[in-house]
Structure formats: structure tokens, C-alpha cells
């Protein structure tokens, strides 16, 4: 009788992992902010991290590019493999890691310089000086970030004059200019209006073809729309991780269910 015709939504084995964490624990002084986080970030997929405020989403996403290193009193245990290499090994070049793993923040933070220089900044730091080469990178990055058409005739103007949504796409272009493999985004649209948000969401969906994206968001509909995998965090733990469709249609854990249906606390 009751034949279960459900197709299990579990991760497809074919897709490779670009980042893998193993029993990661993190403390801010005495605060134990991450507890035994073991997870995989799949190449060419969008992974969303959701969970209530203070659950450790930003902390976890910062673990992936060692951004917590600069925080006083922060201590981390466990392993974080990026393409098979533990990025917390002492011989790792942090600058190199941050080149290959870019970060976009909640509030757009363009440098107080021209649109062009914002995008060219990273490549210049990494040693590219030929103007024609830089021109090429700037145009390509701005196109990838779906901003080119809006700024091609104002490349010399200050980035500060752009709208919030344009600034955020500029920051994405700036991150793309150094050809990262992974792009981390911490609530990239929370300061934007719905139209600017839709543009960034479309952009993220396109980026997946070439990059791997990890995004922290408070907007569950956004996570459902744009991600392939979703992790639900609570009190520093990764409670559930799986295919986005499964998490939002049929979560396995009661905590996840309660959170995404708003029956929390």
C-alpha cells in the first residue's frame, strides 16, 4: 500500500565541493558562537544561510575567507578546506585566499573614487598595470555585474553618486574583477529597494554559472528563490542543511519548520 513516490531531495553526488568545513568551533572571547559546523559548499551552486539574528550566519560566512582573523579575541578550531587545502594552516597566504574568495557586505561600500577605479583597484593591487588590460577587466566585470549599461558613460564619476542598488552591483563588479572562485554575500540586498533587490537576485542566479555563491539572508523567500542549497542555523549550530526545495517544502527538523513558518519563540 502507501507507495512513497517521493524523490529524495538530497545533494546530488556529481557536484563537487569547493569549501568543506569539519567540526568548526569558534569563540569570541568566552562566547561560543559556532558549534561543530560540518558542511559542504558545492561548486557552481548558490548556498543560502538562514536563521534568527545572532545565530552565527555572519560569523560562519566570515570563516570561509578568514575575515574573523582581524577580530580581537576570536578563536577558531576545526578545519576549513578550500579546494582540499585547510585555509587555517599556518603556511596559507591570507591575501591569496581573499583574492580567490570575495566578500560582499550588507551595506554597499564603494571606495571614494571613480567607478572605474573601484573596479580596477583589485587587479592593480595584484600587479596589472597596462591600461588596455585594465579597461578590458573593468568592462567585463561591470557587464557581469549587470551595471555596464548604466555606468558606461560615467566611469570617471565618483562611485558615491550611484544609487544604493548600483553601488551594490559596483561592489560585486569590484569583487569579480579579481576573478574569485567563490563569492560570499552577507545580506547583500537588505539595504535595497525591491527593484534593486530583483536585479541583484537575477545577477546571483547568473553568477552561478561561473562562480560559487554563499549568501546570508533574512529574507526566506529570497533564499527560496535564488539558492540551490540552504542551511538553517540556530544558536551557533547548523540545524539542517539540504536542497532548498526540500528545506522550504518539507524541512526535516521541527526547529527549521517552526522558523520558516514563523512559529518561533
Amino acid at each position, binding site marked *: *500500500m*502507501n*507507495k*512513497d*513516490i*517521493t524523490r529524495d531531495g538530497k545533494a546530488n553526488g556529481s557536484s563537487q565541493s569547493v569549501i568543506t568545513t569539519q567540526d568548526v568551533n569558534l569563540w569570541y572571547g568566552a562566547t561560543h558562537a559556532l558549534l561543530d559546523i560540518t558542511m559542504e559548499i558545492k561548486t557552481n551552486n548558490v548556498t543560502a544561510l538562514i536563521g534568527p539574528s545572532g545565530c552565527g550566519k555572519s560569523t560562519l560566512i566570515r570563516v570561509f575567507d578568514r575575515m574573523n582573523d582581524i577580530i580581537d579575541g576570536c578563536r577558531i578550531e576545526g578545519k576549513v578546506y578550500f579546494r582540499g587545502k585547510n585555509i587555517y594552516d599556518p603556511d596559507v597566504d591570507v591575501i591569496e585566499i581573499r583574492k580567490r574568495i570575495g566578500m560582499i557586505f550588507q551595506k554597499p561600500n564603494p571606495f571614494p573614487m571613480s567607478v572605474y577605479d573601484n573596479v580596477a583597484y583589485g587587479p592593480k593591487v595584484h600587479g596589472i598595470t597596462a591600461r588596455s588590460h585594465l579597461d578590458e577587466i573593468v568592462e567585463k566585470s561591470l557587464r557581469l555585474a549587470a551595471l555596464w549599461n548604466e555606468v558606461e558613460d560615467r566611469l570617471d564619476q565618483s562611485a558615491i553618486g550611484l544609487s544604493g542598488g548600483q553601488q551594490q552591483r559596483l561592489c560585486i563588479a569590484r569583487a569579480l574583477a579579481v576573478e574569485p572562485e567563490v563569492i560570499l554575500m552577507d545580506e547583500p540586498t537588505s539595504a535595497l529597494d525591491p527593484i534593486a533587490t530583483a536585479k541583484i537576485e537575477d545577477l546571483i542566479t547568473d553568477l552561478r554559472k561561473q562562480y560559487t555563491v554563499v549568501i546570508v539572508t533574512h529574507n*526566506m*523567500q529570497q533564499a*527560496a528563490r535564488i539558492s540551490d542549497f540552504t542551511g538553517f542555523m540556530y544558536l551557533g549550530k547548523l540545524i539542517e542543511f539540504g536542497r532548498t526545495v526540500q528545506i*522550504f*517544502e*518539507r*524541512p526535516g527538523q521541527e526547529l*527549521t*519548520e517552526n522558523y*520558516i*513558518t*514563523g*512559529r518561533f519563540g
Partner: protein
Amino acid sequence: MVEKFHLKLDDMKEEVLKMGFLAEEMLEKSIIALKDRNKELAEEVISKKGEIAALDFNIEKDVLHLVPLYQPMAKDMRTIACILKMITYLTRIGRYGKDIAKAVLELEQEPHISKLVSIPYMAEMVNSMIDDVLKAFETEDLSLIADFDERDDKVDALRYSIFRECISYMTENPRNITQCAHYIMVARYLERCADHACKIAEKVHYMVNGEHIEIG
């Protein structure tokens, strides 16, 4: 705001149950009317047609209203999916009750053959399935629908035996043809109602634990 959504969803579930009881009542009364050749009761069933259609229309409208406002997820979303399907099946069950009641009016002048064959017994089985699936929807107790496959098989077998029996009455005496033709139709309607109860059971199962299953 989310709190308000859950209150509204509870209200919608109440409405669905109300509709379910109405569909059940229509089917039950149509069979009593058939058995007793009770014209008034048959007309009462037919008069409920508008009521059940209105419930169908209003529940669908109200539930669809909730979707853009609250963008439900997980079990909330599954409940909404279940309700939207369920009301269609319940409308059909009610309409079969109405169709049987119409047959009662046509059979008014004809005497019954051999205690109506096994139609009342079959109707009882179908009604208990509708009753159980409504209870399962209300209480989320899936054990109530766990044996629906077997029960549906029994209903199917009964329909076939009624069909065979009617054929033999018809060959015996052509004056039985009118009644028997109606009995065959009624048995067919009851069988469809059991199928709808199974379909509802699939949706209730999905609502409760997110699994798509096939019943019947």
C-alpha cells in the same frame, strides 16, 4: 502578523471541514432518499447544490488571498495546497449526492428490486472513508487513512458485483431495466466518491508529512 496568518489558516480549515460535512451529508441523504423513495429528502439534497458551490468558491478565493500576503512555507504551504485540492474533490462528492438524488426523482414510480442490491452497504463504506479522511484532516492522525487502499479495493469489488447482479435482473425481466440502469449509475457514483476520498487522503498525507504518496 504571522500569528494572524495562522489564525486565518485555522479558520480556513474549519470552513473546509464544514464543506466536507456538507458533501458527506448530501451523499448520505441521497442514499436514504433512494432507499426510502423519499422525494422531499431528494429535493433537499438537490437544493444544497448552491451551498456547496459557494463554499468551494469562497474557500478558494480566501485561501488564494493568503498566499501573496504571507507567502507561506513548509507545512503552511502544504496545508494550502491540500485545501485547494480538497475542496474540488469535496465539491464533486456533493455533486454525486445531487446526481443520486435526481435519480431518486426519476425512479419515483418504479418499485425497488431485491432490497436495492448492495447499494446501501456500499454507500456506508464510502461514507466511512469520507468521514475518516475528514477526521484525518482535522486531527492529522494518518492512521485513519492507513487502510484506504484496501477499502478502495472493496468498494471497487462491490461496484462490480452490483453491476453483475443488475445485468442478471435486466436479462431476467426487461421491466427491471430502468431501475437497474439507475443502480449501476449510482454504484458508479459511489465508486467515484471513494476515489475522491483516496485523493483527499493523498493530500492530507502530504500536508502532514510532506510526502507524495499514491492511494487507490
